């Protein structure tokens, strides 16, 4: 596998409601920002473009096609889309570069969840015979997972609250975060239960926003003359849709992806984990076998702001930018999709 360089990354603020901005108006500012960072003019200056989004979120069919209006696709460009988090659009772009079909790629993800009732919208991604007709939502599954872990003594409510307190504290240094500030574990534990055993703060907020990234071969990065971090390994795995057959107390697919991506081949300075619910960060830290020396979610993670379909790519971008800024030498980024961490993508990055 050849190293692939991340040369640019930009993300919008996570906001509860982007109001009048449509998909094009959400995407354009982050695209302009990554062009500027790279020193290029438009999507015409890269070999491939791939995006991640889900039309169900805003209830606008083919919103992802409308999003292409942000690119300047005249003359036509090589373009693709995944109805998934843009972390998987990065994976497709990484494959293009591995195959020698592109030297550079633009990746972007966007999500406008505010127009709909997100947990209910997400219920429709589930099994269409057994689950979707009951409208069982994402929060319910996460709550049942948390209860299994609490009752088996695998986590405590205080540990969950610690995850939230650290997220809010770290987010204080993140200008894009939606939820931030100093809050103590005791204060959090004094909050009422929301969907028991979860409290409201155990669940990520609902956010609108977008992010974009430019990747390329190391040779191209040198030609552009911009600082970069490299992707040393990337892999993704999925577990069965038959929820009763899964062990919800651990993330086997994360473990498998971590092994394939080579997480254990060196110390991990920084990790950004896509844990939409507090207890899932603990599951992921264990699955990735991270030591206490690893700084986990220095951005605050998605508990501080979660743009569905962009947050996974943002985890990777966060780690890359921190490595470029000298905050560490080696980092791990994780993205997830589906109920109870069903599908997981793990990326290993190194500073240059």
């Amino acid at each position, binding site marked *: 596998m050849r190293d692939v360089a991340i040369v640019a990354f930009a993300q919008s603020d996570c906001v509860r409601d982007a*109001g*009048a*901005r*449509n*998909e*094009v*108006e959400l995407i*354009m500012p982050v*695209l*302009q920002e990554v062009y500027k960072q790279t020193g290029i003019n*438009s*999507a015409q200056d890269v070999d491939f473009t791939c995006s991640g989004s889900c039309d*169900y979120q*805003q*209830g606008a069919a083919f919103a992802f096609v*409308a999003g*292409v*209006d*942000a*690119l*300047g*696709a*005249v003359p036509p460009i090589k373009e693709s889309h995944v109805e998934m988090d843009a972390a998987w659009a990065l994976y497709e772009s990484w494959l293009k570069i591995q195959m020698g079909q592109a030297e550079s790629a633009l990746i972007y993800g966007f999500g406008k969840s*505010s*127009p*709909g*009732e997100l947990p*209910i*919208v997400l*219920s*429709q991604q589930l099994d*269409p*015979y*057994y*689950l*979707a*007709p*009951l*409208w*069982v*939502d994402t*929060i*319910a*599954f996460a*709550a*049942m997972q948390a*209860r*299994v872990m609490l*009752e088996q003594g695998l986590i405590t409510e205080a540990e969950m609250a610690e995850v939230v307190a650290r997220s809010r504290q770290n987010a204080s240094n993140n200008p894009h975060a939606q939820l931030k500030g100093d809050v103590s574990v005791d204060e959090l534990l004094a909050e009422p*239960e929301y*969907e*028991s*055993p*979860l409290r409201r703060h155990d669940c990520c907020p609902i956010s609108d926003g977008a992010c974009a990234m430019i990747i390329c071969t190391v040779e191209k990065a040198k030609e552009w003359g911009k600082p970069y971090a490299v992707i040393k390994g990337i892999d993704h795995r999925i577990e*069965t849709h*038959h*929820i*009763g*057959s899964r062990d*919800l107390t651990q993330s086997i697919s994360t473990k498998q992806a971590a092994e394939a991506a080579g997480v254990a081949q060196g110390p991990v300075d920084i990790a950004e984990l896509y844990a939409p619910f507090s207890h899932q960060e603990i599951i992921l830290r264990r699955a990735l076998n991270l030591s206490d020396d690893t700084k986990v979610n220095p951005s605050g993670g998605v508990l501080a702001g979660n743009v569905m379909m962009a947050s996974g790519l943002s985890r990777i971008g966060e780690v890359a930018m921190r490595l470029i800024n000298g905050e560490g030498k080696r980092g791990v980024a994780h993205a997830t999709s589906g109920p109870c961490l069903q599908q997981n993508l793990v990326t290993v990055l190194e500073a240059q």
Partner: protein
Amino acid sequence: MSSSAEILSQAFTLGYTYTRSTGPIVGQFLTALRDRKMVGIKGSDGKVLMPPVEFDPVSAQALSEFVDVADCGVVQTWSWVSEPRKAHPSDKPFAWALIKLDGADTPMLHWVDAGDAAQMSTGMRVKARWAEKTQGLISDINGFVPEATTLSEDYQTNEAEEPITGIDSPSYLTYNFTAGGATARYLAELKKGKLVGQRCPSCENVYIPPRGSCAACGVATTDEVELTNKATVESFTIVYIPIPNNPIKPPYVIANLVLDGANISFLHLLSECKNEDVRIGMRVEAVWKPEEEWGYAMENIQYFKPIDEPDVPVEEIGKLKKGGR
């Protein structure tokens, strides 16, 4: 439609009115539900999977051996919904639960009507509360209840004998759609009876209706340009088919029109002429509804009608100069 200075939004419900074929495995499970019975399926390792799946989650082997399972069992984990959402199966507080039915080796997801969270616990025994009428759907189980609950068994038998092979599974999702910033500005002017497009700062093309960007250059369109009521027919079609919910009686003409000063066309109706007289290059102008009927919609213009001006040569249509000038 509500409006403030910049934000125009409107609620709408999107219906995905799917019918789904079940295949033999899911179909047999749903057929059993219709008869108020539970069946699981034997996995590659001999364990009974519930509800049945077509392929073993570990070995990926096709599965086919059905096993009768009890309609009662044990709660393995649960969550409590104190404020049910509109779409949820219960309008009073309830529990979601993973329930391992007697005779099954994996739990299935359903809901429990326990009245109060204090009545719920992991390990508690529950039984299915069957719907009065069954249809061959997962909702034929009208939730589970604590096993000691007395249920009336005033059931109607479903006399159907044909196995279930397909189900109706409509889903309706309600959204509050918000017009984009550029669209909102365009609609606000339209309500005042003005056609205002936006110019690309890079290539100078003028777009109406504007969408916020120049699709060719990928940059935001910010300059607003007021356009005239006059346009040229770029292409057209005569519609002979009645469209459901469309009040216009066929045959009628729909045309791609390029407004004077704009670089791209939009669709509108053409009227006050014989359909057979419509031609590419024909000059037309907007016929507006009475002012008191104007809203945030292109329907403010009833249709376009021909005007007495020479046709635009075909080779010049849609190839207007930059900036529409």
